[in-house]
């Protein structure tokens, strides 16, 4: 479980996150939605430690991530997998080496064990026999799946997905959604998804947070959105044709 308590973040004079409180549950797909520039990406970057918060607490199973030193944070980071909007696969490495990368850095597994784990992860995302290919020769959907395979290589407790469907066709988008949902339930992962894709939200969203101009404007279940009475959320949904 991840809890945010009174998170504030600003860049110079501009306040980007104001007093954010939220809870993300294990085994659930926790969605963060909001317009572009609302602060959801900044919130995710703060949660994974790419940005420092100005004040507040980020609790990973009751451990305050903000107060930890580098080595302590590294221990938590081993439990984090992240799927980037642009996949962020290492161009110079093959698919196999991309997925093996965290295993080589963080574990003392033997080469045969690493390859076995890589093949397992590739099988899990339905991409067998692409080990020796390089990211440049993969389609957008394949890259996303390799990104997921890399994210789950270390059996993460927490999975962050930044716009997992961006740039994908509707069929591939649903495949990626289904995969994230299955993995979340199968490994009891606390999954946090930043998205604009309302179709994904209504298909797999368990817990939803709506960010508006840096503030948490609404939190609830997908079935409650239409009766939320929150004007900003309803106009956001209307603009998304839902």
């Amino acid at each position: 479980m991840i809890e945010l308590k009174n998170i504030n973040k600003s860049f110079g004079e501009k306040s980007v996150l104001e007093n954010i409180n939220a809870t993300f549950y294990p085994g659930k797909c926790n969605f963060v939605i909001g317009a572009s520039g609302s602060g959801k990406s900044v919130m995710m970057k703060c949660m994974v430690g790419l940005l420092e918060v100005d004040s507040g607490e980020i609790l990973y199973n009751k451990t305050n991530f903000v107060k930890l030193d580098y080595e302590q944070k590294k221990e938590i980071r081993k439990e984090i997998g992240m799927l980037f909007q642009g996949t962020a696969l290492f161009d110079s490495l093959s698919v196999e080496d991309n997925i093996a990368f965290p295993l080589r850095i963080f574990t003392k597994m033997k080469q045969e064990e690493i390859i076995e784990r890589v093949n397992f992860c590739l099988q899990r995302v339905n991409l067998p026999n692409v080990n020796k290919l390089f990211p440049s020769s993969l389609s957008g959907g394949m890259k996303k799946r390799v990104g997921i395979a890399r994210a789950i290589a270390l059996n993460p407790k927490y999975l962050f997905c930044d716009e997992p469907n961006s740039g994908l066709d509707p069929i591939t988008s649903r495949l990626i959604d289904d995969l994230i949902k299955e993995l979340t339930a199968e490994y009891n992962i606390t999954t946090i998804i930043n998205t604009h894709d309302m179709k994904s939200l209504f298909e797999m969203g368990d817990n939803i947070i709506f960010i508006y101009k840096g503030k948490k404007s609404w939190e609830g279940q997908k079935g409650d959105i239409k009766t939320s009475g929150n004007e900003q959320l309803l106009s956001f949904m209307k603009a998304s044709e839902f």
Partner: protein
Amino acid sequence: MKFFEHFGNYTLFLFSLFKRPERFRVFIKQTVHEMSSIGVGSFGIVSLISVFTGAVSTIQIGAQLVSGLVPDYMLGSFVRDSNIYEFSPTVTSLVLAGKVGSSIASEMGTMKVTEQIDALEIMGINSANYLILPKIIAGIFTIPLLVVYAMVLSIIGGTLSGVLSGIITPDEFIRGLRTGFIPFSVTFSLIKAATFAFLITSISAYHGYKTEGGALEVGQSSTKAVVYSAIAVIIFDYVLSDLLLS
């Protein structure tokens, strides 16, 4: 003011390279890979430049030694010294600032804008240490070797051009090469090469690593890397000459 801001950021960036090093085995593997990329990848261009620099210096110096006051064989000495002291380390480094510098800056810049560096950081890896320190160490070892290679080729180029154009006989040129040779000239050249290597790799990596935006900014970072590396090479060429030869 902007210069001081950049200088301060560059200094902090250099310190960050040494924080939280990754496993030694990983570091060595990366360094060897970079040595191959910088060294083997630059062999062709360095060969071409060196042969022609030596050839041109022989013809130009030879053209100025028509008075008869200086013995012909001294052409070999002049060509040797000009190439060892200046042309081989400096011209080779300027060429490498273009080739290696732009390559490092664009690689780092692309990794930055495509979030590959963020991916490393999220894994808890000091990306500067993991990606950049091996490049700098590889440059410091490889570029001086390329400079030694350039010295040899420039002297061979100089000999060939002198002989083929009929300016000097091979025996006289070799006599000149052997006259008044100061071994420190090679040491001086290697010190310059190692310093230039550090400047080229670190300045280029800095500009690439600080890239924000997209493809346009990656191109701009690459250009800045080449320009500032070349300027630093020229400035330190003067500083080192003044410090070590005056």
